[in-house]
């Protein structure tokens, strides 16, 4: 949303950029690695560039790459991307009251551009939606500035990765860095015993069901893990219903 002058001329826009800047090297390193992983896994430079510019979601990109390379059907790839992105659905519930006063296309553009780090920084800074029009504009400008630097770091680094990838032999196995990145995000989500159960069940089920055609083992594994966790919750409710 950085192209709207009411946002990028607002002082909170620069503040948003400044507060995300310490995270910028980390975002860039992740983008660089995703760029390398896309090309090293067999995507063309054009496909990898289109993915960088359009999808703009590292974890769903990395999860989609092995499925695309294996020729999984589109719906399986999209369903996997959707599940990996479900955390954003939770974020959107939180951001709703901050953005709902805007026209729909502006809300959706803000939503599209707000990735993990921007969401965390935004809700840490603003606990409640502003009461006044100026306050709402300030919050929106902060989010836009934060999103802008995050977007820029990600996109530039991804393109550098795509450019460098062809200089590195595939036999080095650098694509594995993408799996390690997903593993790190997976660990970051393992915040409760029930989530660890979900992770363990899904991992085991994905291996057991691997021989299913069309990479359906992924869908089966997610379904088995979620159903099992919901069942365990029913039988033995967690204290306070927290997970």
């Amino acid at each position, binding site marked *: 949303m950085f192209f709207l002058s009411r946002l990028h001329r607002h002082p909170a826009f620069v503040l948003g950029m400044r507060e995300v800047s310490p995270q910028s090297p980390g975002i860039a*390193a*992740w983008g660089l690695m995703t760029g390398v992983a896309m*090309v090293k896994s067999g995507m*063309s430079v*054009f*496909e990898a560039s289109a993915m960088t510019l359009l*999808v*703009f979601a590292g974890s*769903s*990109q990395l*999860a*989609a790459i092995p*499925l*695309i390379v294996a020729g999984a059907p*589109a719906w399986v790839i*999209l369903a996997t*991307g*959707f*599940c*990996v*992105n*479900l955390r*954003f*659905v939770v974020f*959107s*519930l939180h951001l709703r009251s901050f953005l*709902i006063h805007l026209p729909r296309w502006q*809300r959706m553009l*803000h*939503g*599209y551009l707000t990735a993990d780090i921007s969401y965390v920084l935004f809700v840490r800074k603003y606990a409640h939606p502003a009461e006044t029009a100026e306050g709402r504009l300030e919050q929106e400008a902060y989010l836009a500035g934060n999103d802008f630097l995050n977007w820029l770091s990600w996109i530039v680094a991804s393109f550098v990765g795509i450019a460098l990838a*062809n200089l590195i032999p595939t036999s*080095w*196995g*650098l694509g*594995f*860095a993408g*799996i390690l*990145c*997903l*593993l*790190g995000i*997976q*660990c970051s*989500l*393992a915040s409760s015993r*029930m989530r660890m159960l*979900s*992770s363990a069940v*899904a991992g085991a089920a994905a*291996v057991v069901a691997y*021989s299913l055609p069309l990479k359906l083992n*992924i869908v089966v*594994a*997610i379904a088995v*893990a*979620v159903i099992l*966790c*919901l069942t365990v919750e029913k039988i033995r409710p967690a204290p306070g219903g927290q*997970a």
Partner: protein
Amino acid sequence: MNGTDLWTLAVIVGLALVTVLTRSFFFISSKSWQLPHWAQRGLQYAPIAALSAVVVPEIITVQGVLISTWQDARIFSAVVGAVVYFWRRDVLLTIVAGMAVYLPLHLGLGW
């Protein structure tokens, strides 16, 4: 040079729509509405399940067949990566440490 095909490009456009849909899910409509309870609970478990379903077979199988040797660089790399994550809580360090184990074993010993 890898080839470009239309099917992959269509999937990429689809994934972009998935990004828009998930990131703005609850404010696409300005009407107030609620997810059913079971779906709200399911949101707690689906993301980690999806990641695990993609990641685990990439670490402990070769094309779906469980590896039969411990001499596989991926296992050591993943274990070190996970330990480093829980030690420092940093995804970037997880990648760096994991690759620092993976590359010498993979390139040096051919695991």
